């Protein structure tokens, strides 16, 4: 129990320090200490509901939430996460869900970890050489890309965008599947997608993504409880308490470090979690056999 409180605290500390949701660290950690991957994923989703709520409240006060955009993402997200839970149930019956969860983590953590590592390492290196960073930070809005040839155009006032509704719908859909299978908020996918694919201003991205994450993770929580009974309320609460306290200290510690150093640090951690997960998949297990209950009952 104290281990769980401590883990919640540690992940909370990290999420406060780096400004990330922490779901993608929490789920692998839960798996490492022996929580079944299915329970880790479903409980992780439930915990993210809570951390996103406090985030959204803060962002709404600063008017950083584009509700119309959030709503479109949300529709895609609900459909995506519902299909995700359905895939999850089917894979459980096949006995392959644990493998898929771990593979998904290895894939995403390695891509994100290395991108983050190289990007921030380059930024650190340039800074030392005295280059000007702001050069290509602001791209001009390009109106000739394929994104703008899609039908069903809609106006999003707060984001100052006029784009096809299909874009946020499909971004939401893809992220929804990930929420269901990986037990993450999906912030690390949806935030880059909103900035680079939809072209939203960075200021409204975080609040809007949190807004949709609340509903998508809530949907996943309810569906996972109904079809797989893998949500553990007690575990959620323990992680939450630790997480809330940890985030406070994390935010303070984060202010003392430089942005690029923080990101290099986070990247190294993401990569090491990824290596550990990948290593466990490749190394020959002690016992080739495992016993379980038949699925799909």
């Amino acid at each position, binding site marked *: 129990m104290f281990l769980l409180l401590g883990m919640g605290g540690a992940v909370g500390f990290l999420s406060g320090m780096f400004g990330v949701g922490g779901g993608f660290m929490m789920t692998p950690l839960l798996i490492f200490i022996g929580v079944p991957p299915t329970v880790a994923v479903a409980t992780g989703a439930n915990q993210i509901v809570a951390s996103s709520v406090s985030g959204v409240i803060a962002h709404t006060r600063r008017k950083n939430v584009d509700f119309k955009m959030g709503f479109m993402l949300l529709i895609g997200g609900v459909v995506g996460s519902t299909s995700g839970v359905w895939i999850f149930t089917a894979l459980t019956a096949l*006995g392959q869900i644990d493998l898929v969860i771990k593979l998904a983590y290895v894939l995403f953590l390695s891509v994100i970890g290395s991108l983050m590592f190289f990007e921030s390492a380059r930024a650190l290196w340039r800074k030392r050489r005295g280059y000007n960073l702001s050069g290509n930070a602001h791209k001009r809005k390009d109106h000739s890309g394929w994104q703008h040839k899609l039908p069903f155009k809609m106006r999003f006032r707060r984001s100052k965008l006029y784009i096809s509704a299909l874009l946020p719908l499909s971004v939401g859909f893809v992220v929804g599947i990930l929420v269901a299978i990986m037990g993450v908020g999906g912030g690390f996918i949806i935030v880059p997608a909103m900035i680079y694919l939809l072209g939203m201003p960075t200021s409204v991205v975080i609040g809007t993504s949190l807004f949709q994450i*609340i509903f998508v993770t809530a949907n996943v929580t*309810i569906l996972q*409880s*109904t079809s797989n009974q893998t949500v553990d309320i007690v575990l*959620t609460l323990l992680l*939450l308490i630790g997480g*809330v306290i940890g985030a406070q200290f994390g935010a303070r510690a984060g202010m003392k470090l430089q942005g690029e150093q923080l990101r290099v640090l986070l990247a190294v951690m993401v990569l090491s979690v990824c290596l550990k997960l990948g290593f466990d998949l490749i190394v020959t297990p002690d016992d080739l*056999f495992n016993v379980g*209950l038949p699925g799909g009952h």
Partner: protein
Amino acid sequence: MHLARLTSAFLSLFVTSLCLNEATAQNTNEIVAALDDHVVAIDTSFSGSKVLLFGATEGEGDVIVVVRGPSRDEVVRKKGRIMGVWANKEEVTFSGTPVFYNIATSGTLTDMVPASTRQRLELGPDYLNSYLASSSRDIGDAKKDEFWQALLRSKKNNNLYASEAAQVKFLGKRLFRADFFFPPNIPIGTYLVYVYLVKDKDVVSSQITPLFVSKIGAEAKIYDFAHRHSFAYGIIAVIIALAAGWVASVVFRKK
């Protein structure tokens, strides 16, 4: 207190055995046994529980006690390499497998009864009959045995099946007792305790007593609720999370 409970239980046992003797005059029950507690209650702090079985035999003989949990289907999966990654490759489903199996004997089982009896009465985990579920009917005997042995190994490692028989202790010539330990991971359900009296390599008398393993306390209620009203459970999980998030944001703002 334990002693008092034991004494009163013994007394009731003798009364029962007297009644039994009168009721079944021809077919006298030569063995009677009782448990010190018919319920194994699992609460939040459950770290396993001991159950004492005691009884008496008529005349001298050996005693075998078997504790069997409810039966259910179990899937055994075997990992294999798929593109360099270890994944569950093959699976076999066994049906009617007891979730828990423990045995205690007053002597060496192999000296007490012949192999045919051990097989017929399923005395010892290694003598349990394996039944394939309909989905796994078409596998060969070698594969079935390989997977069945894996199931037995896993059950023994989890202390759900006895690795070796425990001791039935005789107090004098007719009174006996056996202690069973139920590990914290036991599944709930109705367990059956079989008591056999063996004379001249033959089982001459037997008795079956139920034992209930159930969850109590808050954890049990949550578990029960999660399975019976899973939709409501999901809603509550979300509401708790929403409330916790709101509380956190209020606390954050004040600081």
